[in-house]
């Protein structure tokens, strides 16, 4: 009976805990992809001049898990994840395809020449329409693609080694076993 005075306190603590969690653990700028376990949209793109074969929807079904990285030469955050992608390529951990978003052929080629090319294939989305079909709303974004060309997950912003271990590695292992 006497604990009834605790009701407002408990209510307040509940709301405060919820807000505390949301403040530090949820990111409102991260909108999860609508495409989880759906096939990638249809598209067909020319490669960045001099950088590997082009990229189309059917190229994504490779029989293994791959990454599709949306990048651009004008994108500063892309430089943050780029060395890590070079590392993944050197270790042959996973194949990475590059979707060059709203860039110029020249700018993209120069950028890859300067920073190195981690991509097995590249596609130039000059107008950004393929990006929109994929639900891209900022660069960089990285899609994890299943062996049969379906989208498993999307990472928004630069991929860090930690994020790779927690979100991409499990998907790689799952498909491997």
């Amino acid at each position, binding site marked *: 009976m006497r604990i009834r005075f605790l009701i407002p306190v408990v209510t307040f603590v509940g709301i405060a805990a919820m807000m505390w969690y949301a403040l530090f653990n949820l990111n409102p700028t991260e909108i999860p992809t609508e495409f989880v376990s759906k096939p990638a949209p249809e598209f067909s793109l020319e490669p960045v001049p001099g950088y590997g074969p082009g990229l189309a929807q059917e190229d994504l079904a490779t029989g293994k898990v791959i990454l599709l990285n949306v990048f651009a030469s004008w994108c500063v955050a892309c430089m943050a994840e780029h060395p890590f992608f070079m590392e993944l390529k050197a270790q042959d951990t996973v194949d990475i395809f590059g979707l060059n978003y709203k860039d110029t052929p020249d700018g993209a080629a120069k950028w890859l020449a300067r920073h190195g090319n981690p991509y097995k294939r590249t596609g130039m989305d000059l107008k950004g*329409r393929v990006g929109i079909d994929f639900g891209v709303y900022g660069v960089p974004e990285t899609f994890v693609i299943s062996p049969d060309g379906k989208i498993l997950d999307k990472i928004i912003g630069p991929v860090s080694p930690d994020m790779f271990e927690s979100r991409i590695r499990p998907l790689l292992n799952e498909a491997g076993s």
Partner: protein
Amino acid sequence: MKSSFRLLMLSMLLAPFLVLSATAVFIEEKLKDPVLEARALEISAEIRCLVCQNQSILDSNAELAKDLRQIVRERIALGESDEEVRGFLVDRYGDWVLLNPPFKISTVFLWLGPAVIFILGAFAMVVFLRGRNRLVEDESRTKLSTTEEAEVNRLLKSDETGQNS
């Protein structure tokens, strides 16, 4: 001299309106049919810009918002209904892209939550107030014993005559 001063004052007064009309619409290709263009703007006003989040794509100057406005126009030019145009964007970006979230299972709490909380609060208040009233009533119902009543009467009487010492 005086008239030119008046002109200056008038132009200063009107300057804000000039600026307003200049920022209201971004320079880009519009649909030729004004009815269709009006529809495109109406839909755009209800689509969230994913880069700036609490702006509609109509208000936003972001590159993506510009592209999405163009897509809305294209879809309308293709003869799609408002619902189909919105569906095209929802397929790609999810319900989040709609500034006005649809009513469905996953948004039930969003829509009905405030009403439910209000009703619960009102119910709790009614229970609390009735409980308090009952407490007062219970006190008034407690009868005095005969000796107590005699004592009360004695005290009241002594008070009336003012000889209470």
